[in-house]
């Protein structure tokens, strides 16, 4: 069994920037234990001498000319989706 406690669930929630209730945490603990037990099966495989694969078609460091692409949109178009703006800026809560 994977060693995984309710404290771990709350720690992960914090790292993920998500708040969870006690009921949610219990449900998540149950689910995550089952899933981690299942995916933990990979740990018994001997893959010490195998290199990891991150990209499956063999591409690496794809470059393009450093030129702007014209999406035919304006900053006004983008700002339409911003929850809070002021004078053409994105407004956020006070940081300090």
């Amino acid at each position, binding site marked *: 069994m994977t060693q995984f406690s309710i404290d*771990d*669930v709350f720690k*992960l*929630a914090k*790292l*993920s*920037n*998500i*708040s*969870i209730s006690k009921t*949610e945490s219990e449900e*998540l603990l149950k*689910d*995550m234990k*089952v*899933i*981690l037990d*299942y*995916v*933990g*099966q*990979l*740990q018994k*495989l001997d*893959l010490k001498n*195998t*290199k*990891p*694969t*991150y*990209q*499956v*078609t063999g*591409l690496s460091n*794809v470059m*393009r000319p450093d030129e702007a*692409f014209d*999406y*035919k*949109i304006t900053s006004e*178009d*983008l700002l*339409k*989706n*911003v*929850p*809070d703006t002021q004078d053409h800026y*994105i407004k*956020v*809560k*006070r*940081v300090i």
Partner: protein
Amino acid sequence: MSQWIDIDKLALDVSSGKISALSLVEKSLKTIKEKTDFNAVISTIEDRAIKRAKNIDAMIAKGENPGKLAGVPFIAKDNMLTFGSETTAASNILKGFVAPYQATVIEKLEAEGAICVAKANLDAFAHGSSTENSDFMVTKNPHNKKLVPGGSSGGSAAAVILDMVPFALGSDTGGSIRLPAAFCGAVGLKPTYGLVSRNGVIAMASSTDVIGPITKNIRDTAVILEIIAGKDPLDSTTIEIDSYKFKPTDYNLNGKTVGVIKELKNSSITSVVREKFNQTLEILKTNGVNIVEISLPLIEHSLACYYIICPAEVSSNLSRYDGIRYGFSDSKATSLDELYNQTRSIGFGKEAKRRIMLGTYVLSSGYYDAYYNQAQKLRTKLIEEYDDAFKKCDFILTPTSPDVAFEIGQNVHDTMKMYLTDVLTVGASLVGIPAISIPANVGNNLPIGIQIMADQKKDAELLNFSSKIEAKI
């Protein structure tokens, strides 16, 4: 009987003036309205679709050519950015989001005269195998309203079988095109990784995400793939395939070799699916196809591998939803930290939270090597095994899913059981090869999907082969 003829013929009828683009769009919108109770569609793009149809009809009246898909209506999964409606990924956190630009796939289809009429339901952020994880509603299976349509592109597959449109677009990360195609009785293609641009598609797991068509037959799939495939400067993972052409008439089944995976012999495939699968093999044999047994010893670990890599990438991709630049934002928050936290806590559904937290765990310091890195190493081994297998056969055949469509609600409280639905589809996703689900058992109880996989970049061969057997099974 479908109200839509083959896509290329339909477009020809429009461009020759035999029928109007407007009549097709109206027909499509009417069917969508008549069948709203299946919850296949989140929103319609009525005004824009009608305007585009009128423009296309005007072009034709002037003798201009509107393209290979003139006037053909389609539905896009709601994780693709489109004009004329919201793009929500079926999530509360993106409710109200209106895309400032369109996905490359949508642009490519529109450039050929196709018309997007609606956005299809999905598991929120494409996290799921049944479309029950949509934050808005559960899509129902066209064959039986008590059953799921499969997922995550459940709305797209249901829309095609409900005859709302001649084709729909889906996205597939671990089986999300193939599974709903199998459960609904449609053709669903997951192309080679990188063949179709993902620019403007809401990311789930970037190392396996692909876009593909869901249609009624292989010919339609080929028509759409030819248009949406190819390199895109806005998606650096895209690839070009030389001489990509669908030529079924020149193709001969005789002498082709199909591999059947030895390790699946004792797996949990139900007898009804197994029987149909074995029948398919018999039909192939009588058509001159050689059936050989191949071995993929590590295949039993592919689902575990996928459910490490997928949540890891999900947790990274979903970190952008913070309530600052777009989407839902909790207006009651008093500090920046609280804003991030409350926005994500309220905006994300259960499954998104579960995957974000799982992903955070497998990537965290102290666990990275044991989980994430180990999974990526296994991926290397899986690629080697599939490479070896394709030295012995041209195609690999499996059922698409171990069972037919299940009841709505049946698996929602058993996460692991739900994840196991993907056991036969995740392999092709992890190694980046093309895979298609074609319907068997049509008109006879519930549809069963047969999955055919080919080696990387052999998408055209896969379609040629599939087109020769689709009418036979």
